[in-house]
């Protein structure tokens, strides 16, 4: 399992997980794919000299060609340029969304699990309530309150991820706070804050990492879905979900307007899920080990 490492120089568990992930075939494929997508969106100005929002009605609905590798849309904008810039926004919405959810969820989970009592009951009840809004519906309800728009969509996605992070963090705290090293730290006079940030949080990183990666995929999907429904980016902003929404009108004349932006979302989520699966496999081994000890 450990490969070339000699028994006398055993690597740290973190390094072992890292190496195991790097060796995983699907993680390799996912990683390369993801890097390509990130590079192509953020290096957009290097890859194309066109303006994503420049319209040219005479050039409308041109099929893919050398000059327009992904064709043009209903008002003559270059679909390839919009694909590249749209990727920037789609990936950012996903990343910001999951980060908001993780920050709030982890903080609430730490407090809830560590201090317990009525605050814990209240927070647990509140997450139960939030979790009973199926799937994208919670994000929709939040958008109904805040109104459509990109930053509101990010916030809505973030809030809908809070319950999962809070639950995971809370259950992690509940098992870790009984550990001997936490007791020792408390005996030495450490403050609650120090115990939480120096002992409990670092030891929960592995399980959180799985939720973070797989959640990033779902977050990108949710962002694209909100944009597809027309509740996110406003025209003319390029975003993969929003591009699909406007391309849908031309599904009979221009397949390239629905195939490419959707493929962007699909490949981004697929690459992240491949990496997430590998992380989850690698971490599962070590978590079981810890529990058996």
């Amino acid at each position, binding site marked *: 399992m450990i490969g070339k490492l000699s028994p006398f120089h055993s690597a740290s568990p973190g390094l072992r997980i890292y190496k195991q992930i790097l060796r995983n075939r*699907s993680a390799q494929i996912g990683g390369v794919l993801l890097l390509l997508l990130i590079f192509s969106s953020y290096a957009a100005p290097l890859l194309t000299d066109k303006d994503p929002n420049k319209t040219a009605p005479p050039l409308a609905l041109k099929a893919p060609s050398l000059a327009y590798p992904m064709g043009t849309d209903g008002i003559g904008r270059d679909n390839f340029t919009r694909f590249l810039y749209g990727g920037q926004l789609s990936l950012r919405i996903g990343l910001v969304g999951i980060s908001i959810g993780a920050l709030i969820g982890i903080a609430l989970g730490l407090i809830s699990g560590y201090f317990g009592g009525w605050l814990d009951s209240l927070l647990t*009840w*509140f997450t*139960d*309530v*939030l979790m*009973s*809004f*199926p*799937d*994208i*519906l919670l994000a*929709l*309800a939040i*958008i*109904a*309150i*805040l*109104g*459509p728009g990109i930053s509101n969509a990010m916030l809505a996605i973030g809030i809908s991820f809070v319950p999962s992070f809070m639950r995971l963090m809370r259950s992690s705290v509940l098992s870790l706070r009984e550990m001997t090293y936490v007791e020792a730290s408390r005996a030495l006079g450490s403050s609650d804050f120090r115990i939480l940030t120096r002992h409990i949080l670092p030891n929960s990183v592995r399980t959180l990492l799985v939720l973070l990666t797989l959640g990033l*995929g779902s977050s990108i*999907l949710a962002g*694209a*879905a909100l944009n*597809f*429904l*027309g*509740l996110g980016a406003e025209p003319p902003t390029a975003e993969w*979900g929003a591009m*699909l929404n406007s*391309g*849908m009108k031309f*599904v*009979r004349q221009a*397949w390239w307007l*629905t*195939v490419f932006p*959707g*493929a962007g*979302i*699909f490949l981004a*989520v*697929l690459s*992240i*899920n*491949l990496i997430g*699966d590998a992380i989850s496999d690698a971490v599962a081994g070590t978590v079981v080990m810890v529990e058996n000890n």
Partner: protein
Amino acid sequence: MFNYLVRRVFTSILVLIGISMLVFSVIHLVPGDVTMAILGRQKVTKERVAALREQLGLNDPLYIQYGRYLGKALQGDLGTSIRNNLPVAKAIRDQLPSTIVLALSALVVAVSIGSILGMLASANHGTWLDTLVMGLSVSGLSIPTFWMGLLLILLFSVNLGLFPSISNGSTPSELVLPALTLGLPEAAVVARMVRASMLDVRNREYITTARAKGLPEYVVILKHALRSALIPIVTFLGLQMAYLLGGATIVETMFARLGIGRLAVQSIFNRDYPLVQGVVLVTAAIYVVTNTLTDITYVLINPKIRLK
């Protein structure tokens, strides 16, 4: 056992109360004055604003407003739509059946295609077929519903002309594409579960016994292995209401199909807050009730849990 049931039902009631509080507060959480958000840029007179405030009952103290909201909701009165002055409950009653038909058809798609693929993969464990099914399954988990819907429209409607791309509920063939769109990603999950479950079961002693008796392989798989492999899947399906109800918003919108999912999206665009509240409340309540029933059924059919 009895204690468990009481506790489970009690938790669900607490959650339902929380949902009603959250849904009730939607209208109060809107930044600024909600009446302005509703009336928008129309030239409004003070009388119009006052009338709307009165209609929404915004002049009373919060707890009275919530009490009234809850009381009416329990009697099936979810308020009146701001846009067309029709009862919200009626709009939901009219459109809910369409969503249920869609969700159930999607479930049929998911279970039938998913179990066939899962069984194929597990029976050919480690071969290219297994790899192919697992590859399809990871893709199914990553594919956006709306993109798959569009690809299905491109293939079956635009190129082959087999099924219509608009589903307004007059013929059964209209249901095919929406049901596939909602059901296929779910089939990917089912295929994974069936495969894992079958692989887990196939080395058990009673399977060896069945083989030793000289039963043909298909009888061993279908009659002995599949039966116990299905238990975790059945319970999993009960929990899939969330995905189906959430996915319905997208699928109904893209196929212009009647249903409460599309109703929710439209009401957000129209800033029709009572309608948003009604749809969200009903959907969440359906979800909580199905989850509770699934949990209870699970305990009733699974003796291992019952004993605890």
